[in-house]
């Protein structure tokens, strides 16, 4: 197990390093001098030069990259061009909202997707199977902002069941829960669709295995076969899928946050894009990469725990 963890960890480190290099290079491709951008059009040449020196922009690129990495490791992610606040602070301030939304929709996806997947697999080629397959295909087809607008229109505006304006910040616990509901469903639709499809096909594969047939031949009760023999094995690939799609989930949270006007990383990213706040964008890219790599690593580890065969590969 230790060896498995070490290998996975070293892969993650290589990927992380490569992405950092990519982020660093991308930030250097941006047209315009960062010092000029920070000081504005009116700045004198000497002021720009001194800021360039202070930022280390007169150093060779590999030294700048080294500085960039050291800064990241020490928690110095740069300063926002717009708010003049440290980038890391601004990110950490809104990160909980995005994580809260992501976790809730992951839960929604699992709670809806797994039972439907099992149900469909147990009734292969019957109505519920077709319905689940078409329904999940439809779920995969919704751009997150389209489903968001439809949910907002129907349940927020026409029916009035949920608040149109988010009260994610402040408000009572119930208010917060109520305003989390629609965004969660919106982001969870895609997840539920993926999970249902994966559970179904994984369940079908397991139900055809010899040991399930043997259990059936021995006369083990149907619900016991499903719970003890089939589901336990079928759930392994589902876990990997959940891990793989957390990245997509984080991407879609951007659109969900815009539609439902929730604070979070997504709103921050769009805001800093409009203000051409490059240090902030760079920091957000680092954050996304860290999140995705961490989730992938966690998935690999959980996979190793769930399925003892994996670590010997």
């Amino acid at each position, binding site marked *: 197990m230790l060896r498995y963890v070490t290998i996975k960890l070293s892969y993650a480190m290589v990927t992380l390093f490569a992405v950092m290099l990519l982020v660093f290079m991308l930030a250097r491709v941006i047209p315009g001098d960062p010092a000029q951008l920070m000081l504005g059009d009116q700045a004198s040449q000497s002021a720009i030069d001194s800021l360039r020196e202070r930022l280390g922009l007169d150093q060779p690129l590999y030294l700048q990259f080294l500085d960039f990495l050291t800064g990241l490791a020490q928690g110095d992610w740069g300063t926002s061009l717009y708010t003049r606040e440290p980038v890391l602070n601004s990110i950490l301030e809104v990160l909980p909202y995005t994580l809260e939304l992501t976790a809730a929709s992951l839960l929604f996806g699992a709670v809806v997707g797994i039972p439907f997947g099992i149900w469909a697999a147990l009734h292969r080629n019957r109505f519920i199977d077709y319905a689940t397959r078409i329904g999940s*295909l439809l779920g995969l087809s919704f751009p997150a902002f389209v489903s968001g*607008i*439809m949910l907002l*229109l129907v349940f927020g505006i026409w029916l009035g069941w949920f608040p149109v304006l988010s009260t994610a910040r402040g408000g009572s616990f119930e208010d917060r829960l109520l305003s989390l509901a629609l965004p969660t469903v919106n982001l969870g639709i895609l997840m539920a669709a993926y999970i249902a499809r994966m559970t179904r*096909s994984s369940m079908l594969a397991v139900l055809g295995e010899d040991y399930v047939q043997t259990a059936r031949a021995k006369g083990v009760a149907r619900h016991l076969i499903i719970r003890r023999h089939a589901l336990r094995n079928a759930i392994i690939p589902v876990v990997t899928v959940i891990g793989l799609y957390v990245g*997509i989930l984080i*991407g879609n949270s951007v659109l969900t946050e815009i539609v439902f006007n929730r604070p979070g990383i997504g709103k921050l990213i769009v805001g800093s894009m409009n203000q051409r706040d490059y240090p902030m*964008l760079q920091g957000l890219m680092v954050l996304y*990469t860290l999140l995705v*790599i961490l989730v992938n690593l966690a998935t690999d580890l959980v996979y190793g725990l769930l399925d003892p065969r994996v670590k010997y590969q």
Partner: protein
Amino acid sequence: MGNTNSLIGMSVFLLIVIAALLAPIFATHDPVQQNILFRLQGPSAEHWMGTDAVGRDIYSRILYGARISLIIGLVSVGLAMIVGTAMGVLAGYYGGKIDQLVTQITDVLLAFPSLILGLMIVAILGPTMPNLIIAIALTTVPQFARVARAPTLSLRERDFIQAGRALGYSDLRIMYRHVLPNIFPEVLVMGSLWLATAIRVEASLAFIGLGVRPPTPTWGGMIRDGFKNILDSPWLAIFPSLAILILVFALNMLGDGLRDTVDPRLKGEK
């Protein structure tokens, strides 16, 4: 079910392609012609899907908007398919250092959510059609590399490939004439599924404000504008939303059905 699905998906997709190609014939109005006297009107006999905030005809704009979605989607996925498949086949065929390099590159690209990567690239390069195509293609390349690599790895060991080698065929010839035709069905299935994703990503970028610049109508951009009037004129956002949903759903049906046909073992997996 696979065949019916792909048939329905294909028909709807072709209908949309025809509608986009013949937009000048089917459109009832000029898609960029503003008419402030008729702004924010609901659906009527004159304007089938209503008018937007500056009086442009929504129905005609949706027809023309389909062109942008389809061009960006098809070109970017086509590009990604060529580059990604080439990368995957090379990696799988040669193995060793090349394989490691390709796998590492795909892992790095896959570490980004495609929407975020696309967003960053377009934000930096600027929202023009070529840049959008590059951004979406770049996020899709690793998917094709992955799909092409795995079967190439196992094909490499097969007798007919070994025989080709023994006959002194060049590597290029073996890859092009013998490996590629064998993996092509899978690559094509991926193509239709990722076309759906590419169109979704393009619309999402346009919704965020990173689409092809106005006045060119794009579905995502129309929804973005419509969202501002969601309380009093919901049709502004509803009709283009339905258009995207129908196109993406059709492509997913097509890809899903094709996959069942290509590989019955995977029935309904994703």
